[in-house]
């Protein structure tokens, strides 16, 4: 009989959802509490089948809402169990208060977020408004370019979350439908290799240890809240410090090297494009296309949005002629979130590049290489205006 592990050793054609479900299967958390929401649903469905078939011993709680999903995960994680959930868009919005609470309790939860536009109007397709709305929540945010990365980052996230210097929850973001439902070749690593990498859960102050009773979730008055928040900031600093070491360990185990950013043909680039998520694949294609024509374009892809890699961005972009930032989310009344953050990173740069902000792809609006070329062309022609909001693919 062929085991699941043996079947999976070669590259398989998998959707992002199935790949992430396999990561969860291999991590084998003690508890999963999840509520279905398009386009996250297949993750929960695959995992539920693994549970029903006894491939994992995980106790699965079919909660009645996302708010309860994160609440049950908090209860389980505080008890000393490894607990996971997954969601999208309005599900993430519904659990918003508990998302903050999870981070404040320093619970090392890992949650795949299948990026989908927040209502209204209701839209089931991809954009980053859902995870952008959680950027202040205290969660680490990792963005996957493709299904392989979604699978790998979920595994890496467990180690990052549970590290002593960190103890913060992690959301692994993968674009809705594009990655979650799109089929790509994915290599699933052997079960025991993944299990060795994630290791045993290290509970801190577990509730279930009744011989050392602890209180979780007290009320803070003005004399302690600030100090507790400062501790969370320190945890994020720990994540920034520790990520390279964990990425190095991941490379040793599986051969793939992660970092805060990926530089693609940026060394001699005149114009660098910055983006998050699956669009980076399209941008790489556009970069190659423009390079063939002699245009010096490059891509700076961000893997981590929280902690935000200020120094790495400054190092990569300082001295470049032009930078265009592509945002798949808007921040109404202000500059687009990724643009704002990148621009701010360049405040202390010796030679600040010209910059342009491009919002694209809201509600699943398709982004094509031609659209990306338009932004790069603006940059190369010196037409960028750092204060003007531009759009790609919008019917203006």
């Amino acid at each position: 009989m062929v085991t699941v592990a043996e079947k999976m050793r070669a590259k398989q054609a998998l959707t992002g959802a199935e790949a992430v479900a396999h990561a969860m299967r291999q991590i084998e958390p003690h508890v999963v509490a999840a509520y279905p929401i398009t386009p996250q649903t297949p993750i929960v469905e695959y995992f539920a089948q693994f549970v029903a078939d006894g491939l994992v011993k995980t106790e699965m709680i079919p909660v009645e809402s996302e708010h309860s999903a994160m609440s049950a995960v908090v209860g389980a994680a505080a008890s000393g169990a490894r607990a996971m959930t997954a969601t999208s868009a309005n599900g993430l919005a519904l659990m918003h208060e508990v998302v903050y609470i999870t981070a404040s309790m320093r619970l090392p939860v890992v949650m795949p977020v299948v990026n989908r536009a927040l209502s209204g109007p209701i839209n089931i397709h991809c954009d980053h408004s859902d995870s952008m709305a959680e950027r202040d929540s205290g969660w680490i945010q990792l963005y996957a370019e493709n299904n392989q990365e979604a699978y790998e980052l979920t595994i890496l996230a467990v180690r990052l979350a549970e590290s002593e210097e960190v103890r913060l929850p992690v959301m692994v973001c993968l674009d809705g439908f594009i990655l979650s439902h799109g089929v790509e070749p994915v290599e699933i690593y052997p079960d025991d290799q993944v299990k060795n990498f994630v290791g045993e859960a290290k509970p801190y102050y577990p509730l279930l240890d009744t011989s050392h009773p602890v209180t979780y979730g007290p009320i803070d008055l003005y004399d302690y809240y600030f100090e507790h928040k400062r501790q969370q900031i320190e945890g994020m600093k720990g994540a920034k410090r520790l990520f390279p070491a964990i990425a190095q360990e991941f490379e040793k185990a599986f051969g793939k090297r992660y970092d805060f950013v990926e530089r693609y043909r940026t060394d001699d680039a005149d114009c660098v494009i910055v983006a998050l998520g699956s669009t980076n694949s399209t941008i790489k294609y556009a970069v190659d296309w423009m390079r063939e024509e002699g245009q010096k374009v490059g891509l700076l892809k961000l893997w981590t949005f929280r902690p935000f890699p200020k120094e790495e961005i400054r190092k990569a972009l300082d001295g470049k002629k032009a930078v265009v930032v592509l945002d798949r989310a808007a921040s109404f009344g202000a500059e687009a979130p990724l643009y704002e953050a990148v621009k701010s990173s360049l405040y202390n740069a010796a030679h600040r590049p010209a910059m342009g902000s491009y919002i694209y792809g809201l509600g699943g609006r398709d982004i094509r290489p031609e659209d990306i070329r338009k932004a790069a062309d603006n940059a190369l022609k010196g037409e960028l205006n750092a204060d003007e909001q531009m759009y790609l693919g919008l019917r203006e």
Partner: protein
Amino acid sequence: MAAKRWKEIPIGGTITEAGNAKEFKTGSWRVMRPIHDKNKCTSCMLCWLYCPDQAILQTQGHMDGINYDYCKGCGLCSSVCPAKAIEMKAETEFLE
């Protein structure tokens, strides 16, 4: 206790010293003080059962008295006592 700095407290807002509220003596809240009359008391344990602040002292079902460190002076003990063995007096009578 003096307020601690951010590096001096456990992360996550977790309180690791179980039951340390005992350091907070709520007896200072009192406006009325229960006075226990050992002669009338039958150690029925109703006052002990109902005290919201567990300020009734008893040993193996025998009433010992009131724990004035925590007694808030609500008077429930006096109210439920069938033997009228607890009388509520103004706290001002006991000011030193």
